[in-house]
């Protein structure tokens, strides 16, 4: 586009990259203050640059694209290193750098005693770099670079305490499960190349826009469904959600930044970004909505029976991501993205608050050994309460606005989706407040000496709490709505009241069960019997995957690859080659006996043969 100002978009991701590089190479010998300064400085500079860029761009009615260089040129396919900002990515940029900076600040306090301080901040900055690439990318391949990069950082940070076996296992699980999704994503890209001859988003979406809506199936449906596979991996949707709860093995700020606020919303972002493709593929939209709904319900159910405070919030993340998918699937893209933003606020806050609790209790994560912390860590308590009210969808907190927008759109699409969503909202309120009540009310059941976290930790909590309270009034929906077709949603007061009512009912139920009549929970759990056991054991999904996929894969590998390919083909081939070489060597080694005179005889024989040949050939020139 002509006459666009050059805004140096590339600086946005480069700041954290420099920070990651400095801390990663030199940080080992630096003081903690310097490391923290570099890391926070890098992400804050990035945030400042985002704000500066957006203020320079003003209304941003059309996307601002900056093309830097050709990355891959192969035949007709041309992939450039191009970055772009439009209204959608501007929202994501602000969330990623803004919440990211807050979490960096918090992490300085949380990780204070850790020996891997420099390593942690290097990874965290690297994550920001890849996440910003993902958001800024103007073509799918560059987006995929960011996509894989955040996956790598996620792996590194889940496995941050790599001396513990569970951390390494969780990291591997996250990585492997994400590969399944990434495979779908790569296939989607290949289909785009075949169909459109380009990976540039503008070109792909313009071409998709010109195509007719596919009633049943077609190339766009295929592309969209493959993108959904990718999004399911990254955004932890059924059936690929299993890695996210385990990912809580990483340090808590990581859970807040990567596994709640930013990376896991990448799938939602990609689907919203590709809305032109999805709008032509109603089948894929329906799949997105159903997957989202299923995820929301399943994760919410499991969340009610978890005893690790981080696990509770992890399942709640999965469940909320499901909500976002429902929003996308029913065509309310802007509502889905709005929920991404508000969720980033209150879920980051929930995790950071949980981290503050864990910090106060010297590493205790079990809800059964908490309780009565209300007066001991009041700032954490009040901020966590704000986050819990937000996620429960209580007016006027942030979660109310975005969740309601999604539920209303779901009602317009199919009423049964609304009802399932509302029940899930009630469940959500129930299990989040279960955690809050178990943690802060009643008698203290542990043995540590709780202490409030330092200011560097509770200041980000307070800021995020303010955002969780008031974030719902940010005009995000209006800002990004023009990017998507108009969603016809009527503001039906009854439906709003119903959903809030379910939320409040969930809170009250939790209050009754865990504060007024402690012990009810155990009794009702006993009465539910098998159902409760199934929920507490996460519906045996991990076990089922083990039995259905992991175990056969292992056995098959052992039988075919180890005993077959490795031992017979590879080792046999290798041994055969060795035997051949040894045999020939055995023949020729006798020639080289180390006896000079025998060498002289060979030379003589050679000369005789040579002369003989010359004579036989007749000496012709």
């Amino acid at each position, binding site marked *: 586009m002509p006459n666009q100002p050059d805004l140096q978009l590339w600086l946005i991701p480069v700041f954290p990259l420099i920070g990651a590089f400095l801390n990663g190479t030199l940080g080992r010998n630096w003081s903690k203050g310097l490391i923290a300064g570099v890391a926070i400085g890098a992400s804050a500079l990035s945030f400042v640059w985002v704000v500066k860029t957006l203020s320079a761009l003003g209304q941003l009615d059309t996307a601002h694209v900056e093309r830097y260089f050709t990355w891959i040129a192969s035949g007709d396919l041309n992939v450039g290193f191009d970055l772009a900002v439009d209204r959608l990515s501007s929202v994501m940029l602000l969330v990623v750098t803004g919440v990211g900076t807050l979490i960096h600040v918090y992490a300085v306090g949380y990780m204070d005693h850790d020996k891997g301080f420099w390593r942690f901040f290097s990874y965290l900055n690297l994550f920001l770099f890849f996440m910003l690439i993902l958001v800024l990318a103007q073509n799918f391949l560059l987006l995929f670079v960011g996509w894989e990069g955040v996956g790598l950082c996620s792996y590194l940070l889940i496995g941050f305490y790599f001396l513990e076996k569970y951390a390494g296992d969780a990291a591997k699980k996250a990585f492997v499960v994400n590969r399944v999704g990434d495979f779908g994503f790569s296939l989607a890209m290949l289909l785009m190349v075949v169909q459109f001859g380009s990976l540039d988003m503008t070109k792909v979406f313009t071409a998709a826009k010109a195509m007719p809506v596919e009633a049943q199936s077609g190339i766009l449906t295929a592309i969209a469904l493959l993108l959904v596979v990718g999004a399911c991996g990254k955004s932890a949707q059924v059936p690929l959600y299993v890695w996210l709860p385990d990912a809580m093995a990483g340090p808590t700020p990581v859970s807040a930044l990567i596994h709640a606020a930013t990376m896991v919303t990448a799938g939602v972002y990609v689907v919203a970004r590709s809305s032109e493709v999805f709008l032509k593929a109603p089948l894929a939209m329906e799949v997105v909505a159903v997957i989202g709904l299923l995820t929301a319900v399943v994760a919410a159910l499991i969340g009610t029976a978890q005893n690790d405070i981080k696990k509770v919030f992890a399942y709640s993340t999965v469940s909320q991501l499901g909500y976002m998918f429902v929003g996308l699937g029913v065509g309310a893209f802007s509502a889905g993205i709005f929920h991404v933003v508000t969720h980033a606020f209150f879920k980051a806050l929930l995790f950071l608050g949980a981290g503050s609790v864990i910090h106060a209790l010297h590493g205790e994560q079990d809800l059964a050994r908490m309780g009565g912390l209300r007066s001991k860590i009041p700032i954490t308590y009040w901020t966590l309460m704000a986050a819990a009210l937000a996620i429960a969808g209580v007016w006027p907190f942030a979660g109310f606005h975005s969740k309601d927008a999604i539920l209303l759109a779901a009602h317009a699409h199919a009423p049964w989706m609304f009802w399932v969503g509302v029940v899930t909202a009630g469940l959500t309120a129930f299990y989040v407040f279960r955690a809050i009540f178990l943690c802060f009310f009643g008698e203290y059941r542990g043995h540590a000496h709780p202490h409030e976290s330092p200011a560097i930790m509770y200041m980000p909590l307070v800021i995020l709490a303010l955002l969780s309270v008031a974030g719902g009034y940010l005009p995000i929906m209006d800002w990004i709505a023009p990017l998507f077709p108009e969603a016809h949603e009527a503001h039906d007061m009854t439906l709003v009241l119903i959903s809030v009512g379910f939320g409040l009912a969930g809170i009250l139920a939790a209050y009754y069960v865990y504060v007024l009549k402690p012990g009810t929970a155990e009794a009702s759990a006993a009465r539910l019997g098998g159902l409760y056991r199934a929920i507490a054991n996460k519906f045996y999904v991990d076990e089922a995957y083990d039995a259905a996929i992991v175990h056969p894969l292992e056995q098959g590998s052992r039988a075919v690859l180890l005993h077959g390919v490795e031992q017979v083909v590879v080792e046999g081939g290798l041994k055969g080659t060795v035997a051949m070489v040894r045999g020939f060597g055995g023949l020729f080694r006798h020639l080289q006996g*180390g006896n000079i*005179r025998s060498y002289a*005889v060979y030379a*003589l024989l050679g000369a005789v043969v040579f002369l003989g040949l010359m004579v036989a050939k007749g000496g012709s020139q």
Partner: protein
Amino acid sequence: MPQLTAVPLSWYLILSAILFALGIAGFVFRRNVITVFMSIELMLNAVNLSFVAFSHQLRQVDGQIYTFFVMVVAAAEAAVGLAIILTVFKNRQTLTIDEVSSLKN
């Protein structure tokens, strides 16, 4: 050079071949290092002889120049070779070629 015209080229070559064969035989069958060494000299001189003979026959001076080169190299080789033989004998008290084999294997 009238006195040489009486001797045909083939005689020189046959003599050269005989000398060369003697050199090879000495090199291959004798065990004394000095004898082997002398055999090498013999082979070199056999070649020198054929060079000079051809040079005369073809009326070209190249062969004689090469002969000088060979003689210079042979002299240098003799100097170095005899020095090595002397040192070996000092250390090993032997001149038998098969016994000087510590680098073997």
